């Protein structure tokens, strides 16, 4: 996918998000002017973006939505549920198109039909804005007009008025009419047919084409020009119109440069190619390219590039504006208010400054180490030297820690990025389930690593679906239980030390441990005897067991075979844990405990088969040593009893395909781990220190290696392989 399209997709998704948020807010408070304006701007910018990638179906759909929005803004049309739904449906369609474009790189073929269907809905019940406003992409006269007035960027509307020849006899005075319309920025008059000589000139026949750019909106102009509407074309300008001409000019400029290149090599070919490109650009922009062929012929005959170059330059009048100028230019409908993008990071300057400051301090330490080395060469007393080095090391440690923290801080995103998608989803899910629930989102400004935030959507969605589907009761059931009919669903996020907590809490029916026990026994998740020994609190954990689903009916929403076990494995892959708390009749809370960052990992070093490995600290329950006699052999496997629980013992060396030590020592060293709620112990040859490491993911040939989370370098230059226990123990 090219960068241009990639940027388009990012931008559009942001705009869709913004518009969705605004529309939902509008539904709650229909007279929120700011939200309305913001939604309008988002639609408008989306439409412009569609034009830039030449996706007319999307442009048309958004134009229709924008028209209705603008009539709402003018107060001609109230904010209705239908109106919000139509707009949201359009955004859905846009997202589908974006997905298709992301997958194939092209606009889907059936886009026009889909756009027509949705546009029909807008025009059916909504205001009729037919009038003379052109719903299509820019007509051919727009580009040359806009190109002629590169300074008139405040223009919102372009008008082409072709008074018919007999208009003077009807008492019309076209220019007087035009002069009375406020907001005229630029005017162009050209003869409809070439001027005859003055002797043959008929002063009573109008032979003018009047074109102008106005800062007034298209609808206002349509009103003013209503008396002559049959002779007028009105085009609401989009950024596209400017961008096109700017791009066209940039290309033309490049052709002029190519033509003027002082090199005899390939002269004719260069000129022909430049002329061809220029002709294409001109026809695309709707400009006549008549003189070009002639100029090219003359240039070739005289072996002089100037005739062609001169033919091109007048087209470039007003080229002071470069394409980039237009890109950074504020949208005519107002600036976009987005503050952060999902894929490209926008970083606070303060964070960068902090890193620069740290870099400076690091340089100081580097110099100090150089000084210590010189002292060593000069035969300084070893104790003094050791002290100096120790001091520098302490300083260096502090600085690298700060540096790591600062770099990690760059990668953070607010949870808002995931949370904001739920207001829309909850609205739809409750509607399709015939339930009533209010979503309360809290702590959306809590930050977490980009990777964590981005991976959070799927598991959260699943939990929210479950809560609405299984947790929240029908309004009738709630009423008879003495609860308010509208349930409350809370999604909140907060920071707890180095951890980020995300919670989904409902005030629904809660999970009944009795039902869980029954289902678990029925589905063979656990035997009845084992179940009898498990407390009610622990029994809730069974909802995360693979193959467990308590839904008695499979609904649209949940029960698609992806259970809570998938949620748990996603969260654990991020280095987090999932907890459940529920009280029958009062509701359920699912809590994700996530690491603030996935980049820094705390590991413990263990030895096995003569090599060192890192084990993620968060998975370690404890380390222990025991006599080999305490280990019982069960078939080919080994296990031991730890606090009246049977824990399987796995040789780390063997699980990695390495040979076991030939003589197994009588004293067994084991690391007890908890992965996915399962306790297991890894037999190792020795324990080492704890380290904070920045994990480098495996790439290239090693990317497919199982059981390895990544690598990092140890102080002595050895590569430390950090294990992915979840993969290893499965």
């Amino acid at each position, binding site marked *: 996918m090219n960068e241009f399209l990639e940027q388009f997709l990012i931008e559009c998704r942001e705009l869709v998000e913004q518009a969705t948020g605004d529309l939902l807010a509008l539904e709650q408070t229909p007279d929120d002017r700011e939200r309305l304006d913001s939604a309008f701007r988002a639609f408008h910018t989306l439409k412009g973006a569609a034009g830039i990638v030449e996706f007319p179906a999307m442009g048309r759909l958004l134009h229709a939505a924008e028209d209705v929005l603008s009539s709402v803004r003018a107060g001609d049309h109230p904010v209705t549920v239908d109106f919000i739904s139509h707009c949201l449906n359009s955004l859905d369609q846009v997202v589908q198109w974006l997905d298709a474009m992301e997958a194939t790189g092209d606009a889907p073929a059936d886009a026009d039909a889909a756009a027509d269907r949705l546009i029909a809905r807008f025009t059916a019940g909504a205001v009729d804005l037919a009038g003379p406003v052109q719903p299509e992409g820019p007509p051919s006269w727009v580009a040359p007009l806009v190109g002629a007035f590169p300074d008139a960027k405040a223009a919102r509307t372009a008008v082409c008025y072709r*008074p018919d020849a007999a208009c*003077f006899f009807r008492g019309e*005075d*076209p*220019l*007087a009419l035009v*002069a009375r319309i406020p907001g*005229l920025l*630029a*005017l*162009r*008059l050209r*003869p409809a047919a070439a*001027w*005859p000589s*003055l*002797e043959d*000139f008929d*002063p*009573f026949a*109008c*032979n*003018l084409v009047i074109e102008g750019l106005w800062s007034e909106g298209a609808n206002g102009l349509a009103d003013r020009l209503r008396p002559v509407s049959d002779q007028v074309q009105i085009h609401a300008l989009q950024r596209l119109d400017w961008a096109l001409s700017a791009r066209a000019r940039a290309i033309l400029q490049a052709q002029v440069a190519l033509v003027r290149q002082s090199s005899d090599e390939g002269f004719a070919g260069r000129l022909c190619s430049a002329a061809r490109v220029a002709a294409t650009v001109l026809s695309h922009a709707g400009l006549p390219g008549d003189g070009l062929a002639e100029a090219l012929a003359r240039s070739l005959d005289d072996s002089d590039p100037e005739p062609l170059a001169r033919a091109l330059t007048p087209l470039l009048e007003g080229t002071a504006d470069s394409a980039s100028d237009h890109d950074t230019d504020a949208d005519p409908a107002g600036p976009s208010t987005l503050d952060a993008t999902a894929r490209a990071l926008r970083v606070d300057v303060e964070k960068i400054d902090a890193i620069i400051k740290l870099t400076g301090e690091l340089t100081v330490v580097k110099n100090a180490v150089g000084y210590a080395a010189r002292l060593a060469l000069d035969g300084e007393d070893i104790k003094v030297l050791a002290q100096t080095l120790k001091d520098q090391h302490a300083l260096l440690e502090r600085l690298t820690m700060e540096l790591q923290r600062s770099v990690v801080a760059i990668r953070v995103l607010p949870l808002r990025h995931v949370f904001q998608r739920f207001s829309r989803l909850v609205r739809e899910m409750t509607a399709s389930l015939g339930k009533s629930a209010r979503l309360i989102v809290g702590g959306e400004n809590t930050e977490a690593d980009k990777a964590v935030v981005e991976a959070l959507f799927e598991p959260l969605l699943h939990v929210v679906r479950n809560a609405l589907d299984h947790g929240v009761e029908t309004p009738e059931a709630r009423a008879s239980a003495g609860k308010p009919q509208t349930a409350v669903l809370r999604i909140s996020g907060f920071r707890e030390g180095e951890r980020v907590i995300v919670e989904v809490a409902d005030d629904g029916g809660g999970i009944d441990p009795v039902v869980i026990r029954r289902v678990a026994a029925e589905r063979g998740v656990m035997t009845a005897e084992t179940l009898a020994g498990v407390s009610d609190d622990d029994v809730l954990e069974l909802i995360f067991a693979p193959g467990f689903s308590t839904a008695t009916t499979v609904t649209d929403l949940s029960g698609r075979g992806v259970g809570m076990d998938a949620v748990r494995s996603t969260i654990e892959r991020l280095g987090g844990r999932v907890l459940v708390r529920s009280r029958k009749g009062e509701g359920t809370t699912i809590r994700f405990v996530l690491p603030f960052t996935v980049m820094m990992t705390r590991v413990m070093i263990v030895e096995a088969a003569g090599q060192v490995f890192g084990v993620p600290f968060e998975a370690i329950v404890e380390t222990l040593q025991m006599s080999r006699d305490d280990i019982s052999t069960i078939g080919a496997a080994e296990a031991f009893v730890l606090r009246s629980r049977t824990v399987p013992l796995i040789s780390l060396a063997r699980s990695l395909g390495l040979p076991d030590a030939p003589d197994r020592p009588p004293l067994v060293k084991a690391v007890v781990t908890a992965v996915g709620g399962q306790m297991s112990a890894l037999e190792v040859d020795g324990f080492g220190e704890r380290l904070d490491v920045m994990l480098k993911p495996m790439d290239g040939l090693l990317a497919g290696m199982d059981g390895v989370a990544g690598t990092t370098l140890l102080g002595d230059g050895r590569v430390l392989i950090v294990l992915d226990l979840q993969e290893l123990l499965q």
Partner: protein
Amino acid sequence: MTVTTAEDATIRLEGVCTLEDAETLARRLSETPEASVDWSDCEQAHTAVIQVLLAARPQMIGAPRDNFLREQVGRLIGPG
């Protein structure tokens, strides 16, 4: 009559120039193509008048008081 010819063959447009004036102006300009046109006192000009000026492109003198004529139309007809 708002189209007059001064002694030095300058054509003067004064006050409100109507559709009928366009014909007069066209005739005078075709008789004396080198004549300049002084429109400093022109307050309003019918489209037909402006059309004649665009077709004939005479040397223009002065600037009309009317904003639209001065700023938008004047730029198109040019000083000469």
